[in-house]
């Protein structure tokens, strides 16, 4: 019962925060409500017994990515202009509605193979075994490291003063 209440609370807050990101004309406030949305997503991870991912969500999204985006907002001086919508407002709305309708219809009309097993708790040790252990994803981890290095170098080259 407490689980249901937690889910509904987090779901409603996250949807309202996401709507605020889209709807607020002040881009700085939109970024702050995006932070709220990230925090509620971390809460949703906890309700899904993904404790490690909740911590990573807080660290990476709330701690790093939102700071980066807020820094970009500060540096571009367009806070006064806000974030108006373009001419494609109605087609974009229709596209979003059609997408949501299709996905919701597909989700609700599929019989999912729900497993009766209990989830692993805590997940951190098992996840480390998955990532770094034998028959794991160690090659992908290395590729992700190279990708991050390439992204850092690309960002530095792009914003460097001539």
């Amino acid at each position, binding site marked *: 019962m407490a689980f249901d209440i937690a*889910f509904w609370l987090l779901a409603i807050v996250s*949807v309202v925060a996401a709507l605020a990101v889209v709807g607020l004309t002040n881009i700085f406030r939109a970024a702050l409500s995006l932070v709220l949305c990230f925090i509620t997503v971390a809460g949703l991870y906890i309700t899904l017994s*993904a404790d490690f*991912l909740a911590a990573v969500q807080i660290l990476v999204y709330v701690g790093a990515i939102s700071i980066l985006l807020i820094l970009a907002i500060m540096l*571009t001086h367009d806070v006064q202009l806000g974030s108006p919508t373009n001419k494609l407002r109605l087609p974009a709305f229709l596209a979003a509605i059609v997408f949501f309708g299709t996905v919701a219809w597909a989700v609700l009309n599929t019989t999912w193979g729900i497993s009766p097993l209990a989830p692993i708790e805590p997940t951190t040790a098992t996840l480390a075994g998955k990532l770094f252990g034998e028959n794991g994803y160690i090659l992908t981890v290395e590729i992700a490291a190279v990708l991050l290095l390439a992204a850092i170098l690309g960002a530095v080259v792009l914003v460097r003063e001539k």
Partner: protein
Amino acid sequence: MSVGLEHYLVLSAILFAIGLYGALAKRNTIAILLCIEIMLNAVNIALVAFSRYVAPQMLTGHVFVIFIMAVAAAEAAVGVAIIMAIYRRKGTVDPTEIDAMKR
């Protein structure tokens, strides 16, 4: 009806649709980046929900989410760098003004 997999998937679809609308309709490049982050988070919720309800002993969805987070961090860093470079050159972050590749 108690909360199950469908609830998380529908919530994920709602968040993705909101992000999709924002990414298509916004006239500020940084707002588009914010909406892309919402979409990535929506996909992550769906992956973790599948991992929890369909294969709770496997954690494969968690591994995917970790890699999506790494790629999203790289995407945000490069995206912000591109926006800064364009802003420095053209003095605007309006994507309707940034149309050099359309001409």
